[in-house]
């Protein structure tokens, strides 16, 4: 592993050489946040260069109202709710899925949306609802699950969609003018699906630079170098560091199946408010699988928990330790805000991977 060490040192030297004055780069994606903490990248960067976490944690941006809608569904006797593990402990207004499960509700953790097909086939007398949270990375697999259920005439599988799209959130964040960032490390996995073009507004409309970046520590160091080089040369472009996985045009097949099954809708993001065309809902021809419609569960707009700074943390306006609840009333074991729950949430990462001051 000495090899990795030497390459890292070379990149860090280059970063030290290029840094000029104070700079703030946002890593949009939670997977980046975790990798940065785990590998100790922050400890290698010069003081003037600040990395801040963005809104790219799907569980974190899911608003209270949507958690409560899922909880309401589990109280229907005929319903089995399938969810990804991270969502279990996200607090709703007065309960969480994990608390509801302790009361005996039928809630199961799955790791792949395709598991839903097997479960639905095996439990014909139950109504199986897949609570789908995620970005462009997971949406193609969820779309494939929906199509497959239709093809195999599985009639007891429904989708409760809380899916989100990344580019509209970045646009809203930058438009607000509050984020105060000099450049963006753009998410690798999302970009595998959507490619480079959807980010072009970042350079065009905001004169900011962005680099699509992989998740290994060396990828991230190189991504930072590329941003610094653009800065030094006075460029504002979208570049691709993660060329081994991301093609400029993205994954056409995946985009096609998403397009076939879902359509963009206005959606609320925790911290960012309502953003046009930033959510995904089932198209009309799949409406009979839309749990929100079939079970007639209206979505209530609810306030975030008082005192919780997740909203500001997600916009890069606050660092987790700035929140009065951080590490005191809000811990990964007993979280108040979702940023502390998810393994990709920045509060959770700050708490788990403490940095020696």
């Amino acid at each position, binding site marked *: *592993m000495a090899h*990795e*060490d030497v390459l*890292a*040192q070379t990149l*860090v030297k280059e970063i030290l050489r290029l840094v000029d004055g104070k700079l703030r780069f946002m890593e949009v994606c939670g*997977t980046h946040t*975790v990798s940065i*903490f*785990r*590998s*100790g*990248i*922050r*400890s*290698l960067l010069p003081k003037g260069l600040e990395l801040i976490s963005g809104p790219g944690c799907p569980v974190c941006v899911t608003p209270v109202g949507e958690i409560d809608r899922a909880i309401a569904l589990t109280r229907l006797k005929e319903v089995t709710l399938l969810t990804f*593990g991270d969502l*279990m*402990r996200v*607090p709703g207004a007065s*309960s*969480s899925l*994990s*608390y509801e*499960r*302790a*009361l005996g509700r039928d809630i199961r*953790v*799955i*790791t*792949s949306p*395709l*598991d839903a097909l097997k479960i639905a086939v095996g439990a014909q007398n139950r109504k199986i609802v897949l609570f789908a949270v995620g970005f462009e990375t997971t949406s193609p697999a969820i779309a494939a699950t929906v199509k497959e259920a239709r093809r195999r005439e599985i009639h007891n599988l429904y989708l409760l969609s809380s899916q989100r799209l990344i580019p509209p959130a970045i646009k809203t964040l930058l438009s607000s003018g509050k984020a105060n960032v000099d450049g963006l490390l753009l998410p690798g996995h999302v970009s595998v699906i959507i490619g480079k073009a959807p980010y072009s507004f970042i350079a065009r409309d905001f004169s900011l630079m962005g680099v699509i970046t992989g998740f290994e*520590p*060396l990828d991230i*160091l190189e991504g930072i170098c590329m941003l610094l080089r653009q800065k030094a040369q006075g460029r504002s472009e979208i570049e691709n560091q993660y060329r081994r996985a991301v093609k400029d045009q993205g994954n056409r097949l995946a985009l096609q199946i998403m397009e076939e099954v879902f359509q963009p809708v206005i959606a609320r993001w925790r911290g960012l408010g309502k953003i046009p065309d930033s959510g995904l809902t089932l198209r009309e021809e799949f409406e009979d699988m839309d749990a929100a419609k079939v079970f007639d569960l209206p979505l209530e707009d609810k306030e975030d928990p008082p005192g919780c700074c997740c909203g500001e943390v997600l916009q890069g306006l606050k660092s987790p330790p700035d929140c009065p609840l951080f590490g005191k009333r809000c*811990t*990964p*074991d*007993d*979280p108040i805000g979702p940023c*502390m*729950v998810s*393994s*990709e949430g920045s509060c*959770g990462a700050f*708490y*788990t*991977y*403490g*940095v*020696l001051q």
Partner: protein
Amino acid sequence: MKQDRILLAHGAGGKLTHDLVEKLFLPSLDNEILASLDDSAIIPTERARLAFTTDSYVVKPLFFPGGDIGRLSVCGTVNDLAMSGARPLGISTSFILEEGFPTQDLERVVSSIKEAALEAGVMVVAGDTKVVEHGAAEGLFITTSGVGLVPDGVDIRGSRARPGDIVIINGPIGDHEIGVLLARGEFSLKGTIVSDCAPLNGIVQAMLTACGDIHVLRDPTRGGLATVLWEIANASQVGVIIDEDKVTVRQEVRGVCDLLGFDPLYLANEGKLVAFVPQDEARGVLETMRADPLGRESVVIGRVVDDNPGKVLLRTKIGGHRLLEPLSGEQIPRIC
């Protein structure tokens, strides 16, 4: 969130488990021996010091590559005794069976209890059986308790780490948790990872022959290596520095971790031990460990320092550093 119900997380070994012990159990049951909260209770008698421990096993699935609930229930208890340096004298096994459980499976479990006990050189000296209604338990739960004798002069405790001590582990981490995880078949992943489940009393006795003054021994089970190191740094109020480079993780285990977002430092092991030994005895202990079948891959992973008492500093592979904190809030499947 409301605290009026027991959640799965109360059993995960993190802060909620800790709270349950501190706020619910200890206020009623506290005494000098229990309060030390070590893996084994050390009961002083006129003629000898007895080590006593108990543990329940609810692993799912019951059978996994490298072991089953029977083997696990013997090794877990023997290892808790061994981590105090005690020689196990005898263990008890208590079965809670669900109505309808296949007799053949029970025979299989009992036969691996027999084998593991033979391997550890310990007798099963007491037992109990209860059967509950269908649905009241998932197949089979086992509780084992064990009694051991702590040899004269041996004083191994979490609070005895001293600056200068060398930190040694007897092999790669994470095999048990990932092996069991894959055996559950929930991740559509296939692998050849085998649980490291093994009785460690033999290697511990060999280590004690090489160095009678081992300061700390811990088996990094639930919560993994990171949690155990943090507990020791805290109990001893010393700093610990670990080199990420030196901690071995099998490639397959690392691959699964990358895929699922796990950190190998928090994965459970059932046949690993971490030893804190005085610097000038480290070489001898390491050689002894490497001569044992359960210690062939033993390595020095770090050292104890004066700085930053109560903290564990990890030097990362790319030359950065970060603190290792105890496991908190993860939803872990039943692995022990």
